[in-house]
């Protein structure tokens, strides 16, 4: 098994710099803990993200998670941009947050500046059931903001009491680009300027490290295939044993989960997290024929030099995520999932100025993490 011998994994003994740990224990006993750091390119990067279900063992979910590229295309065909590598979400573009922006929470500093807001808040029903069986829940939320050419990107992670992770980018700031092509924008403001419409492709890099061994994760693709009369569906689960690029498939309800090869819940089921990818209506494949825009999800074996989804600089690695998918083993190894989320903005009068935040989110959901509902 040459592939197994040569496979790489994120160092399993990473230590968090002092002062950079974040942890939250909810009233139910459920806990989240993780480490954060700031990089010039990706901005805030989370690592060693652990979830402890109420009354259950603490287990790792993610080894590392980051926004690994933002590719912006303008509808008028003007020069597109790679914001993470060309400008960077960190450094001086990472915004200093003030207390109002983090009301009810705690500001965390990096290099002497408050750049991360950590806030725990009520999150409504966890569940409601008969005989007044009900529970309200809380969530831990982390966000930072980066301003690039007047557009501001708010990068937010929410960790829910029940193990759900919601991550997303909120776009605000000022949409300064204008065009003479009226079909490539929208007429706004009293001056009737044409604000250029644009698409941001957010590329998330999710290095799953389920449970203690980060080198034995398995990817399962699950589909529910409709019968010819479309009255029934049949589930088809398969292990993805080599690197894969794939696209949304509403018809087949395709999704992926990352499970641990050895650790189980008390019913002897493999513990896993699944990707709930609902944002579909704007998931276009780009204005150009770039292969890294042609798929929505890329599953690769961990490679330390595969850092940015596009414009990856390391010479030993591919230049982009479509090149990272090159036939390596993904069965019982360290798995990295790359997810592209496209968001189109057609400016409107209400966006001037600054624009109210527009969110683009996705969900990671525990599946059989515990053998029953623990809350």
């Amino acid at each position: 098994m040459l592939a197994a011998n040569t496979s790489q994994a994120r160092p399993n003994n990473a230590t968090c710099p002092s002062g950079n740990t974040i942890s939250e224990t909810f009233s139910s006993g459920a806990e989240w803990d993780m480490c954060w750091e700031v990089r010039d390119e990706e901005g805030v990067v989370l690592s060693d993200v652990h979830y402890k279900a109420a009354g259950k063992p603490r287990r790792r979910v993610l080894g590392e998670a980051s926004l690994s590229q933002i590719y912006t295309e303008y509808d008028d065909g003007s020069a597109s941009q790679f914001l993470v590598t060309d400008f960077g979400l960190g450094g001086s573009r990472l915004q200093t947050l003030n207390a109002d922006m983090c009301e009810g929470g705690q500001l965390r500093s990096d290099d002497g500046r408050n750049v991360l807001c950590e806030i725990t808040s009520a999150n409504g029903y966890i569940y409601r059931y008969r005989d007044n069986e009900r529970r309200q829940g809380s969530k831990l939320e982390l966000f930072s903001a980066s301003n690039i050419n007047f557009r501001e990107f708010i990068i937010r992670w929410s960790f829910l009491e029940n193990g759900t992770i919601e991550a997303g980018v909120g776009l605000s700031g000022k949409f300064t680009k204008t065009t003479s092509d009226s079909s490539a924008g929208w007429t706004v403001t009293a001056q009737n300027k044409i604000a250029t419409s644009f698409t941001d492709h957010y590329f998330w890099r999710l290095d799953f490290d389920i449970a203690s061994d980060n080198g034995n994760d398995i990817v399962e693709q699950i589909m529910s295939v409709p019968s010819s009369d479309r009255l029934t569906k049949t589930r088809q689960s398969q292990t993805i044993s080599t690197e894969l690029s794939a696209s949304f498939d509403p018809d087949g309800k395709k999704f992926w989960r990352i499970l641990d090869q050895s650790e189980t819940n008390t019913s002897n089921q493999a513990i896993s997290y699944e990707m709930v990818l609902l944002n579909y209506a704007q998931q276009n494949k780009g204005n150009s024929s770039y292969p890294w825009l042609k798929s929505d999800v890329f599953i690769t074996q961990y490679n330390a030099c595969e850092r940015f989804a596009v414009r990856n600089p390391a010479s030993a690695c591919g230049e982009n995520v479509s090149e990272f998918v090159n036939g390596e083993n993904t069965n019982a190894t360290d798995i990295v999932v790359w997810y592209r989320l496209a968001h189109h903005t057609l400016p409107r009068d209400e966006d001037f100025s600054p624009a109210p935040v527009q969110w683009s989110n996705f969900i990671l959901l525990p599946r059989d993490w515990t053998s029953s509902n623990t809350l």
Partner: protein
Amino acid sequence: MLTNNKNTLVRWILSGILVVFASPFFFTTAEAADCSDAFYIDETLPNGARWDMCWESRNREGITFSAVYFTPKNGVRRMVLNHAAVAQIHVPYDDNGTRFHDVSDLGIGGLNMLDLDPDECPGGTMLLLTDAQFTNKKVMCKQIEKRNVGFKSGNNTEAAYSFSLFSVSPVGAYYYIPTWRFMDDGSIEPWMGATGALQRFGTDQSQGWLLGDDRVGVSHLHNFFWKLDFDINNSHLDDVVEEVNFPLVNGKRQRSITAFNSEAARKVNPDTMRHWRIRDKTAKNSNNHSISYDIVLNETGHQDIGPASEPFTHNDFYVTRQNNNEKFASHNTSGGANLAEFVNGESLQNNDLVVWAGVTFYHMPRSEDAPHMDAHWSHMQIIARDLSASNSLGNQTSNSAPTIVTPSKQNSDRNTSPRLTIQANDSDGDYLLYSATGLPNGLNIDTSTGQISGTVTNIGDYQVVVSVSDGEDSSTTSFSWKVTESTDTGSSGGGGSFPIEWLVLLSLFTIIRKRLYSTQS
């Protein structure tokens, strides 16, 4: 409190009068608003945006809304929706064991709507239902929601507010939480939570998931539908529904807008990023732009085209002519049977338009779903477009230009590394970007901080122009920068060995130069 109630009453009476005068046809639409105080909601959010509407409780649809008005802060009160309701929750199971039509067949109102406990409405207020069936039943929770960062451009930021209204309706083992979120920019988000417990268990793992308790939870869909009778700016006969596409043409997006002249059934299309827009043909904002709403159905990743017998699942978006008999997306009892039949070629021109939209959640059970199931949520977006002429949430009415401080004349020795930070200020707190031209060779400006640094390499007199921009307005100034041959001829090159006499001479020289320069200018 008394004053508030009086104000509310007065506003309501006034609005009623306004409605009557503004639209003589208003009461001819079937679902016209006419509500008593107990069924009137009038909420002014902390930042001044206001929503008001009537609600009622129906046995099938549960809570529905009518005469929904939005008033931007300091803006004009306008009707958005004449009527809004949940139109169906269709739940087919993967084994075809059953295909529920929960709203039409079982109902999410009446006895199927909970009398909520106050602890289910933290920080909110309860709306009470008293009718022929119930007395002071706590059917709906109203909560004001604050988001710390509603918009942000550096320190130019404001919180955003919305208020949400939800009820809870058990249908079998499921508990649905229909929620309507009214935003301070005029947008509306209908949400649906689904919680309770799994309804059906089977034996075939290929049509479900083996749970930790050894039961197989059967996989199923929730097709959620909403019915939205838009009457933008009251007049119900002058709205138009458009489809907006952004097809790719020679590497550019070429937006196309197509108005529907007759009833239509349409699907999302990621390649063209399709959405729909409801526009009033006459009403404009103060920029003279048509006021309108976008219908955005992002959560279509689980979109499901069902069997031929369920043609209402074959599309995501429908526009029809208002018809009182068309209430439910499927299992409609009088008139057409479902959405596909409602779309039967009727003209939409100068008619009262109704939009039906749906999103789907595919639920493959997991062990965490037993013995009870955490809520999963679905929603669609109804986004205000050009309803207001500008962002009305902040306190500023127009942008203030940044100001820039002109630096004094600079002198540097060749091969030294001077640092100069351009000082600028913006009263709005906007994020500022700096730029410079004409810098001595080897120097660069950090566009985010305004700091000029580097190592000067060429002697000469440079005229530097620096600008600062907040994205809308900018300020520019200029100063001169003289680079001379290094006066330090020693080999050490370090500042520490710089003879003090030289420094004194140099500063004298600088002062003289400055005086000369200032008398010249």
